[in-house]
């Protein structure tokens, strides 16, 4: 079971690598520009271009090219952004923490909110409260994440002015200590709210569906007959079981939250991977774009792997198999 999963993840990694490799090389147009970006194609001298072509075996067969491509990656070299004049790795490592902060806290928040809402609303299935929560969340789930972001931005930042319009910190403020943390939090608040709102429906709907399934199991009746408090039944007995599908699909949640963060970062000009992708697209900075997507793919795969391990720790039925 575990082995099959790992093979799948490796294959997924291979799939992304091949896509990354083939796309610029097989599309019509100048492969040099498609590999190194517009900036390199415009500003580098012919000699420098020749050197790069030779380095990546661009005049040789695809297989030879692929070898070099993989070897370069294996060294941890993600390429060079000519638009930013920095190695891609450096660029990404500068912005990665912001994205991780945003995605990580949004995931924790949305999972918690979704779980609690899901358990409470599933428990009250069919009542008015349940129907309203369900309707609201379903409505929310229909909205694209960037729209949620834009609406929050327009209302809370532009109209009310409660929060900054963008960025992750106030530039050149010289804040330190608590003031700095507060500043970071103020900048984080709206994007975090947007991403959390965009992610809550997932965990809510999943929890509610699994609570509904679990409530039909006789152990709920057993727990009630034992004279347990409703809170104990809901959270210890039903909640514990409903946690399983959520934790089992955490890998997918990470992917979905990362995707959401791309758009939300752009809306709030939050200096993470999303804004970087936006910039790379605008400047046709293909090495950067490829590097970011590769890092994201790797993150998602690792998250999936971690999820599988976590799920097998939490669910005794998987653990012993």
């Amino acid at each position, binding site marked *: 079971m575990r082995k099959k999963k790992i093979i799948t993840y490796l294959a997924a990694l291979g799939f992304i690598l091949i896509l990354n490799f083939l796309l610029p090389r097989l599309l019509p147009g100048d492969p040099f520009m498609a590999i190194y970006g517009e900036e390199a194609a415009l500003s580098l001298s012919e000699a420098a271009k020749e050197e790069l072509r030779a380095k990546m075996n661009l005049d040789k067969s695809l297989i030879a090219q692929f070898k070099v491509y993989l070897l370069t990656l294996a060294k941890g070299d993600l390429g060079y952004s000519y638009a930013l004049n920095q190695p891609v790795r450096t660029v990404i490592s500068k912005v990665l923490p912001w994205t991780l902060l945003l995605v990580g806290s949004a995931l924790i928040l949305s999972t918690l909110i979704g779980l609690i809402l899901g358990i409470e609303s599933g428990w009250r299935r069919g*009542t008015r409260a349940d129907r309203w929560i369900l309707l609201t969340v379903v409505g929310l789930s229909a909205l694209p994440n960037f729209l949620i972001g834009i609406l929050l931005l327009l209302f809370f930042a532009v109209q009310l002015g409660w929060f900054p319009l963008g960025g992750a910190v106030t530039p050149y403020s010289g804040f330190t200590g608590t003031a700095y943390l507060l500043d970071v939090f103020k900048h984080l608040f709206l994007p975090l709210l947007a991403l959390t709102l965009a992610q809550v429906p997932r965990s809510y709907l999943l929890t509610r569906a699994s609570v509904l399934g679990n409530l039909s199991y006789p152990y709920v009746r057993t727990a009630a007959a034992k004279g347990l408090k409703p809170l104990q*039944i809901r959270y210890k007995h039903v909640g514990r079981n409903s946690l399983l599908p959520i934790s089992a699909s955490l890998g997918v949640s990470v992917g979905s939250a990362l995707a959401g963060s791309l758009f939300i970062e752009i809306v709030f000009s939050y200096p993470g991977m999303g804004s970087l992708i936006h910039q790379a697209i605008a400047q046709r900075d293909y090495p950067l774009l490829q590097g970011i997507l590769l890092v994201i793919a790797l993150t998602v795969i690792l998250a999936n792997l971690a999820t599988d391990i976590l799920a097998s720790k939490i669910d005794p039925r998987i653990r012993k198999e």
Partner: protein
Amino acid sequence: MLQINNYHLSYGKKKVLRGIDLVVNKGETLALVGESGAGKTSLGLSIGGLIGRESEPANQAKVQTQGQIIFQGKDILHLSAEELQELRWSKISFVFQNVSNTLNPVLTIWEQVSEPYSSHHLGTRRQAREQARIMLDKVAFPSAKINHYPHQLSGGELQRALIAMALINKPEVLILDEPTASLDPITRQELVQLLSRITKDCAVLLITHDLSVASALSKRTAVLYKGKILEEGPTDKVLQTPHHPYMRALLRSYPHMHSSKDIQSINLNLKEPAEGCVFFPRCTQALPICQTTAPPVLEFKLTVLSANAKEELDFFGQNGSSKVACHRGGIVPYLVVHRLSKSYGPEFSLREVSFMVFEGETVALVGQSGSGKSTIAKLIMGLEKPDQGNILYEEQKTPFPRSQEFLQKVQLIFQNPYDAVSPRLTIKEIIQEPLLIQKIGTQEEKNAKAIQALADVGLPTEDRFLHSYPSSLSGGELQRVAIARALILEPKLLIADEPTSALDALVQAKIIKLLMGLQEQRGLGMLFITHDIALARKIADRILVIQNGEIVEQGLAWEVTSNPKHPFTKQLLAAASVF
């Protein structure tokens, strides 16, 4: 200790329980038996206040209850949620049926068994764990598996854990809901022994469809059908001589190692009864009142009119101990033969013969030729007049000569079919003869009835057959014609005098099956006169052994044949065919 008074439960329009009255005392086990869907589990859950509270919040309004469930002077139906919570498991606990996920799949056994102890504040978590370990040891749960999860355990182990969990808070009322279902027979046996050992101090309500478990664990048994208790009484009596047709059917359908008669069922008319008796649509002895009024629950009592006054007959030795919900007071004694004597000079006389034939029952009268079997048949039919004693049909004295009504309700089937039908009449005429005599129906109705009677006994119904003569038929066919003739008046009681002794074994088997089928459908009572005790064992509910004009032994067929008391019965059994 636990008293249920006129408890009704309905779920929306569906009536689940319709007026239950039960009492369970301390140290007593009451078995509640019945088929799935009878409402057994709903009743059990009601006692824990578990109906429609936590389980279905949106449908709570649909659950309607009436009546009382009194425990320690308080009505469980009117307790607050907190009071109920307090009551559950500390006073009333359950051993639930072990279906998948009765225990929480992601918590260990130890955790779940100890949980009620700590959550009812009987001790710290540590003490709860200790207590759980003691209880699990007590039920012989393997101690190495105490930290296992439910999916790692066998059915028997899970059931033991459930029992330990039920007992941990020392409850006063214990509800066992199918505690041994889905276990293999050997494990079931072990668990039944365990349960009978450790439930002694509680008031126990045992819910089961398994009559052998009810018999092993309980002193009293109540039979539930469609939310109504139809019979209640001492378990051994209820399981041996049931007084409600439903309980008898349940027993007949249930194969056990003693039964000698074939398994039998009743009408499968499952139409929901609107008013009146819940059993009405399937009942073969129903009266018009049964359709409109629910029957009262009455103490079972057999009374007959003897020569001068009403005499109480304690036929089964259980008058007053059982209760039956039936307008007719339970299964009707169609035929009561009371102290019947008839003398034919010094060489032979019938002395003080008494027995009964109930609705839907086969009683075999077994004895040698010349022992007085056929005399009894003649006396019953009114062909001869007794010197002494009474013959009652449906608890009424039979006039002599017999009334037309009696002759319609009671039919005799003779031994020799060749002799029993006139060779000069066609089959159709033979069969229609009783109708002609009793002046029933137009010619068209008579034809229709004839065809129906022929179909009932499995004979052809086309014109060619109807117009043929007995001479063209075999013995088996002729006996069927004779039976069809007897059935055309829709009798309630058949007196069959050696009806198959002139027939080959294969034909006999066919005719016996036919009669048993008719009994199932119509509730036909049957007095089956035979010299063949092996045959009697297969077809009869009860056997009467007659010797020299005296009934020397009578009892349940399996008892008489497996454990005979009288030397003559032993002799008969020794002479019965064995090969």
